[in-house]
């Protein structure tokens, strides 16, 4: 346990000096500033618009907030894949893993230490960015969407899942292959989800099934869909005027599936890393 914490510390040290983390932080900051400015003007116009009812105004603010959270979701998703993508494969390829693994540490401690460190970094990033968006909405539009205590944790589950996939790939794949695999899976889920939405719209069962299978293979996008669905009032869900009000909402079972999926991926990663020659 103590040794696992040393690995966490070492990995945090590694993550902090990464340029990609700096890029994510700077990009995130730029986004929040732009978002704040945009929010300011939109909120002003919405507020002055005499033809909109109060309810319509709230729906509009909710939609802008969700759009901000969607952008955060994308940024966090990319960080979750890219930050840990070479933490194992890079150290294995360079050989620096040899000195580490020859220590009296279990391989599973190395793996979990790295996993935990990147979960902390990416979760911190998500929390900071989502918090920034919610703060902008609160400060400028005097608005807070409903259901954030359910929605934000779902987004967290999503990034933890992606960190796990990225770490697991790193036990066997080279850095580039691993990145391609993780994004490929995510792309599959993304497209699959749209196929499902359209299939639901036109009532095509085959298309819905394709979407469900894609979500089972990679539940990340489904988690976002459900999170967005939770962070809006019932009226807005029914109106379906924004892309955040899907025709087919992922069920709570999908959340359990995602949690189990993450656990299994971490176990597979631990086994795969324990068996691999260094």
């Amino acid at each position: 346990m103590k040794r696992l914490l040393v690995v966490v510390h070492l990995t945090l040290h590694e993550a902090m000096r990464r340029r990609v983390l700096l890029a994510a932080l700077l990009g995130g900051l730029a986004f929040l500033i732009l978002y704040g400015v945009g929010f300011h003007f939109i909120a002003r116009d919405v507020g002055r618009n005499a033809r909109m009812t109060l309810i319509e105004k709230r729906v509009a603010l909710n939609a802008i907030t969700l759009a901000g959270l969607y952008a955060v979701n994308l940024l966090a998703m990319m960080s979750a894949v890219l930050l840990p993508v070479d933490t194992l494969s890079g150290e294995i390829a360079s050989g620096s893993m040899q000195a580490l693994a020859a220590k009296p540490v279990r391989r599973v401690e190395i793996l979990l230490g790295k996993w935990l460190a990147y979960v902390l970094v990416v979760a911190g990033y998500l929390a900071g960015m989502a918090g920034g968006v919610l703060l902008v909405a609160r400060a400028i539009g005097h608005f807070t969407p409903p259901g954030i205590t359910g929605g934000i944790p779902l987004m967290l589950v999503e990034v933890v899942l992606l960190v796990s996939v990225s770490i697991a790939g790193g036990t066997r794949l080279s850095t580039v292959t691993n990145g391609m695999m993780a994004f490929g899976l995510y792309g599959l889920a993304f497209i699959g989800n749209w196929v499902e939405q359209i299939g639901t719209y036109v009532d095509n069962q085959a298309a819905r099934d394709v979407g469900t299978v894609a979500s089972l293979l990679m539940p990340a996008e489904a988690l976002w869909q459900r999170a967005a669905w939770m962070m809006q009032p019932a009226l807005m869900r029914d109106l379906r005027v924004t892309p955040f009000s899907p025709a087919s909402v992922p069920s709570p079972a999908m959340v359990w599936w995602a949690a189990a999926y993450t656990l299994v991926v971490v176990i597979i990663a631990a086994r795969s890393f324990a068996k691999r020659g260094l």
Partner: protein
Amino acid sequence: MSDLAVETHGLRKRFGRKLAVADLSLSVRQGEVFGFLGPNGAGKTTSLKMLLGLVAPSAGRAALLGAPVGDRRARAGVGFLPEHFRFQDWLTGREILRFHGRLFGLHGRALHARADALLERVRLTEAADRKLREYSKGMLQRVGLALALVNEPRLVFLDEPTSGLDPIGRLLVRDVIRELRERGVTVFLNSHLLGEVEVTCDRVTFIKGGRTLREMTLGEETAGVEVELRVGPLDAETAAGLARFGRLLSPAAGAANESAAALAAGPGATGWHRLKVADDAALPEIARWLVGRGVALHELRTVRRSLEALFLEIMGDDQAPG
């Protein structure tokens, strides 16, 4: 608790169709400085990785300090300098020593003192707060040596510890090994630099193609007496008869040249022969026997074998690097 620091039985490693280590059985006694020799690709590094639990053996078993390899406890008393000495290069020399020390459960003031002392020992105090990324090859190898010693190991594996070092660095490594020996630490050394092995090791094993070819205690066999003779033409019977005194060897490189020169000088010229005998006492007998058979004996001398000559002899002449 056994008095063997390293013990292996029938260790084997296969990478796909490539047999890297065929059948390795070794015993290294505690306190011994052990040289593991062999040409490129002989399986030295792979053997070492199996011992350290970095790759899983395909067959066989092994123990370090009495504990089976792969067991985490087996590695608690072990230090390791990897062949390519690559480390987390975003850390400074001081930081990496502290991190690696903590992985051994060291902490606090004791760890800091240990790290500082080791940096001093490998002459890196000046560079201690620079990032490893900025280190030269030799500096990296020296920091690697310090890392291998951070836990005050009872057994140290050094995979070609001087490959990147200048002559001063090599002397430093030699001194460190001597200090380790004095403290009773077992040292397992992979090296190509046979001159160094010769002065540092107590015992060596030669391997090739993943098999042990020869195991020997230095100071015995290398000091063993080899005889070079320059004699007039020998008839076949006499030439064969020489084998009574010891093992006939192919002529050494230098002697072979001279012998070629002698051959070119015409028939009836003298030739060189090499012979390995048990001890000096054989010399007068050889002389007496040759003279008794009417052979012209021009020169009879003993040679001390260098480990390098022995290496080439054991590995065979067909040895192509690879």
